Structure formats: C-alpha cells, structure tokens
C-alpha cells in the first residue's frame, strides 16, 4: 500500500447550485465524525466548506460545471479541498465584515480553520484547501 498513512479519502461532486450546500454539509458531518472532530470543530468545518462552495458556485457560472469536494485525513489533519472549474476569481475581502453581503466568506474561513490555501487551477478554476488539526493526530 502506498497510502499507508492516509486513514481515508472521500469525495462528493455536486451541481453548482447553493441548494446543494445542505448535501455538502451532510458529507462534511460524516467525514468529521470519521476524523473524530468534536461538534464545535465540525460546525467550523461545515461553515468553512459552505463558504468555499458558495464561492465556487458563484465562479462556476453557466453552463454550470460541477463542484468537487474531496476530504482526506493526513499528517494529523483533516484536509478538505473544494474545486470549481469556472474562471479563477480571488474571493473578495474588499467589503470587510460589517458592510454587506459579499466578502464575509474568506475571513470566516480563515477565522475558523487552522489553515486556508487558495490556488488557481491550470485550465481555469479555483482550488480552496481547508485544514483542521485532529484531536488525535495519530489517527493519520
């Protein structure tokens, strides 16, 4: 086995519609349980993934390319990647917290996660990587 250090790797692909966020959260809840996260960290992860997916849905535009959410347990962390295949757009922070509807997503992700990375995919698209330290790092 080349993946002897990886306790699990799971993914879900959804249509780029905010009505799918509910389903994505059930997926996150399930992988968080597998990774032994407590209810507080599970909530944080559900919010962060929802924010990333909401951004991805916005990027996807028409014709509406699917959004992929991949979860893996590695290096003592639960790592979730959210990929969309629309045009790359840096999540906006210009409006800050108090102003308006836009711009809350990225600050919330950063506040709630142990690490957030955003990358431009070759061929268009955006990959957001969220990671949370596990309570029992020996797990993976």
């Amino acid at each position, binding site marked *: 086995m080349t993946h002897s250090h990886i306790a699990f790797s799971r993914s879900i692909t959804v249509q780029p519609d*905010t009505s799918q966020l509910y389903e994505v959260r059930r997926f996150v809840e399930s992988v968080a349980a597998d990774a032994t996260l407590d209810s507080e960290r599970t*909530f944080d992860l559900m919010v962060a993934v*929802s924010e990333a997916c*909401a951004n991805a849905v916005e990027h996807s535009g028409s014709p509406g390319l699917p959004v992929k959410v991949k979860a893996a347990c590695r290096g003592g962390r639960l790592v979730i990647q959210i990929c969309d295949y629309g045009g790359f757009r840096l999540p906006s922070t210009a409006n800050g917290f*108090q102003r*308006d509807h836009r711009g809350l997503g990225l*600050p*919330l992700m950063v506040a709630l996660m142990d690490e957030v990375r955003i990358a431009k995919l070759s061929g268009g698209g955006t990959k957001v990587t969220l990671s949370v330290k596990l309570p029992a790092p020996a797990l993976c």
Partner: protein
Amino acid sequence: MELSTSELAGTPVIRIRGEIDHGNASTLSTAIDDLLNTEQHVIILDVTQVDYMDSGGISVLLSALRRLRERGWLGIINPNANVQRLFQIVGLALDSSFRVFDDNAAAEQALRETART
C-alpha cells in the same frame, strides 16, 4: 428552513427552524424585509431551533441591522454556542443595536423597557 411568525409584547417575532445558508437565506431576508417595511422599531428572531448558520444568514442579519439601527434594534433569542461564536467573529456581538437574549422572558423584559423610554 421553516419560518413562523408571532408576537411578543406587540413586537413581531420570526421563529426559525433548521439551517440558514446561502441557498435559503433569501427566504428569511424577504420575511424580515416585509416587517421592516411596516416601520417596526424592533424585530425579534427566535433561533432556538437553528442548529446551523453561515455567512448567508449573517448577511441577512447585517442588512436588517443596518436598516433598524436608526430607529431601534434587532433581537435574537437563544442562539446556540456555535452560532454565538460566529456573532463574535464577525463583530455582531459588539454591536449595541444587536441584542441577544437567553429566552422569551428576557426579550420581553427588554421590549417593555424600550416601550417605556
């Protein structure tokens, strides 16, 4: 998400049940706007049965607060610990026009005090 409306000491209360996210926040926004358009000074949201909220919901609260601040306040009844943590992160918890109550009785008392002033 399910919404139902009632009154507490003559002030409208929207009871929310379920999860508030980017997909359904506009439903809540519409319900709040309908009340704001009736020139209410105070609006109360009972979130006892809300187990999840993200920036979709937070944005709706910020919009409501912006419209209410000049004339009154926005009350929230019984948010769970996770939702309260979000309020702190986004700075809502520090806003004097954003008032959080443990239960109906505490909200009712605040409404009666507001009515006296």
